[in-house]
């Protein structure tokens, strides 16, 4: 069977593209690739627009290969991928409204992020003025006797991000959920175009605040790949330390929040305390509770001193002492299990088809973790398991998170004992050439893809950031079907997709 790169028969672009290849393919090869995507040969890792072209990142997860296929669109059109491979749907609609490139044959031509309020059309392509009055949105129909609709959002009852959910229910049972997103669209990619490396790093770190560390690593790695920078060894280890902190903090917070949505507030109270301790330690070790802007191209901004390492060890001990009690509490509370077991089940087939990353995929038997399957330093020299569950329900997603906290604790042990001494950053220097870089990094929510092109002066010409939520949001619509409306908060929280990361 040909490997991914063999399947991408085409010309390499004139600028370098690192570390994985990019090929400009013809329409026939593009169609073959799309067909193979539909058959499940490859996993779609990203689909984004550029000036007069579309790019598609494909994974061969079995072999740990990534490649980018590019199709030039001289007449402003490209053959729809979504027609053969549903996960491309929203990405394709986004390309069409940001760049004005038309997906020919796309079964859904409704606008996605563009609510008709920007005052412009195609802001990243041939930008033209528009009235900005807002456009109506045709939700999909659900017909039948006794059905009623419930509209929720964009302003929700809790402290969460903006989005709209349109439920059609029969009594208490949800027949259809349709999401409408884009409310948090800030135009990050347009702000990135022409930005200095530093400014772009700032923006990347604010794509989704809960994953600021992971985004900063993804962006920095893509820049470093493009410029051919060797980052000091110690910086890699410090990055991983921050990334595992971020993972633990989010998993702890969400574990409690899921239980809270099942009206079990006691768990929330306890996990929130642990989460707060992690954030406080992040502040004392790295200078910021969420560790924003502490990772940049070339390395990291702060080093860890001896007392910081001691403090981390003592927090690990606290978590190791407290967390097992909370796990027992979860496991032994029948009323809680009653809500989480068998609720919001995601099938393995869907998780696989969508290339659904993170704890959502791993709770449905999709064993994928970029730290292992596309290992980047220092993970290539650390030992850890990738927890896997098969049931695909809220309970399984909770368990993946519990087990991942334990794995992260083990990783932090290894990082503290194995961290090499030395420098923590080098200054990135422009190469005088146009260059491109791509990276895939494991955030707490799943794999984040960053692709960018730097101009010859070292500024960002185009940067695309793909949040894991792109391949998770659509599945939330699938898992809620047949569940009762009251279980939606539980399902939603157990997914915890990012609105901001998706809306960009």
């Amino acid at each position, binding site marked *: 069977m040909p490997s991914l790169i063999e399947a991408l028969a085409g010309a390499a672009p004139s600028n370098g593209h690192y570390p994985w290849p990019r090929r400009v393919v013809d329409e026939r090869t593009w169609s073959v690739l799309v067909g193979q995507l539909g058959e499940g040969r490859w996993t779609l890792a990203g689909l984004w627009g550029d000036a007069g072209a579309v790019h598609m990142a494909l994974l061969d997860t079995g072999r740990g290969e990534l490649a980018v296929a590019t199709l030039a669109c001289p007449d402003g059109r490209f053959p729809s991928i979504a027609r053969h491979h549903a996960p491309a749907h929203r990405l394709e609609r986004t390309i069409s409204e940001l760049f004005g490139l038309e997906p020919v044959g796309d079964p859904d031509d409704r606008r996605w992020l563009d609510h008709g309020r920007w005052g412009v059309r195609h802001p990243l392509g041939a930008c033209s003025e528009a009235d900005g009055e807002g456009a109506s949105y045709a939700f999909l129909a659900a017909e039948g006797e006794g059905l009623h609709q419930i509209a929720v959002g964009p302003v929700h009852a809790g402290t969460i991000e903006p989005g709209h959910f349109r439920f059609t229910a029969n009594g208490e049972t949800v027949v259809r959920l349709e999401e409408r997103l884009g409310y948090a669209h800030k*135009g990050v990619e*347009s702000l990135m175009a022409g930005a200095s490396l530093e400014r772009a790093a700032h923006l990347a770190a604010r*794509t*989704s605040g809960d994953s600021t560390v992971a985004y900063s690593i993804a962006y920095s790695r893509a820049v470093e790949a493009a410029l051919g920078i060797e980052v000091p060894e110690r910086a890699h280890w410090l990055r991983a330390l921050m990334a595992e902190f971020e993972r633990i903090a989010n998993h702890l917070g969400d574990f409690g929040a899921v239980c809270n949505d099942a009206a079990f507030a006691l768990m929330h109270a306890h996990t929130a305390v642990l989460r707060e301790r992690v954030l406080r330690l992040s502040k004392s070790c790295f200078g910021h509770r969420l560790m*924003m802007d502490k990772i940049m191209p070339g390395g990291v901004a702060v080093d860890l001193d001896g007392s910081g390492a001691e403090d981390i060890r003592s927090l690990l001990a606290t978590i190791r002492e407290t967390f097992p009690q909370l796990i027992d509490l979860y496991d032994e509370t029948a009323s809680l299990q009653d809500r989480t077991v068998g609720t919001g089940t995601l099938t393995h087939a869907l998780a696989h088809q969508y290339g659904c990353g993170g704890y959502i995929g791993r709770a449905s038997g999709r064993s994928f973790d970029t730290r292992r399957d596309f290992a980047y330093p220092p993970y290539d020299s650390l030992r850890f398991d990738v927890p896997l569950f098969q049931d695909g329900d809220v309970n399984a997603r909770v368990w993946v998170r519990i087990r991942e906290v334990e794995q992260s604790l083990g990783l932090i042990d290894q990082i503290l004992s194995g961290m090499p001494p030395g420098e923590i950053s080098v200054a990135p220097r422009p190469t005088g050439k146009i260059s491109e870089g791509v990276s895939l990094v494991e955030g707490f929510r799943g794999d984040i893809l960053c692709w960018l092109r730097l101009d010859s002066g070292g500024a960002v010409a185009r940067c695309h950031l793909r949040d894991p939520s792109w391949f998770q949001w659509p599945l939330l619509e699938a898992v809620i079907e047949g569940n009762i409306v009251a279980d939606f908060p539980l399902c939603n929280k157990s997914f915890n997709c990012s609105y901001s990361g998706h809306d960009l």
Partner: protein
Amino acid sequence: MRKLLFESLIKPVLTETQPDPDLAMCAELATALGQSARQRLGRSLAIREIDAGSCNGCELEIHALNNAFYDIERFGLRFVASPRHADVLLVTGPVTRNMREALERTYNATPAPKWVVAVGDCAADGGCFAGSYAVVGGVAAVVPVDLHIGGCPPSPETLLKGLLALIQDAAHGSASSP
């Protein structure tokens, strides 16, 4: 569960002492709060949070206000689910063009007297997202703002100081108020 509950009884309390309200914020508020409002509110404020397009970093820190260290409810501050129950709108993020109408409508749905607190650097002037085709700007570009709490994101302590300034002014008034 029993063991956990019992331990919670005998362990020392985590909740920290109240931080002093921020003086600069008190001054900003003095002009914002009228006498009548103070009488009506007493010492309790119902808060409705609105994310007008944030990166979600601010939300994380607002959430933290509920944990045992800060325990915001002991000050009579609580988060409510509907703008119709709210005295204060806590708004985060640069206001995106896609959220502008939702913010206006939420504001209009909140009964007077009401206050708007803009949380985070983005809410002040759009922050690092200012200038984008998709962003209106800070919260004040859409609804009147009574207090800004800066930071990216503001720490829970900073948030608490700002909100305490609000509640103190609401309860006692201050020298320069009408």
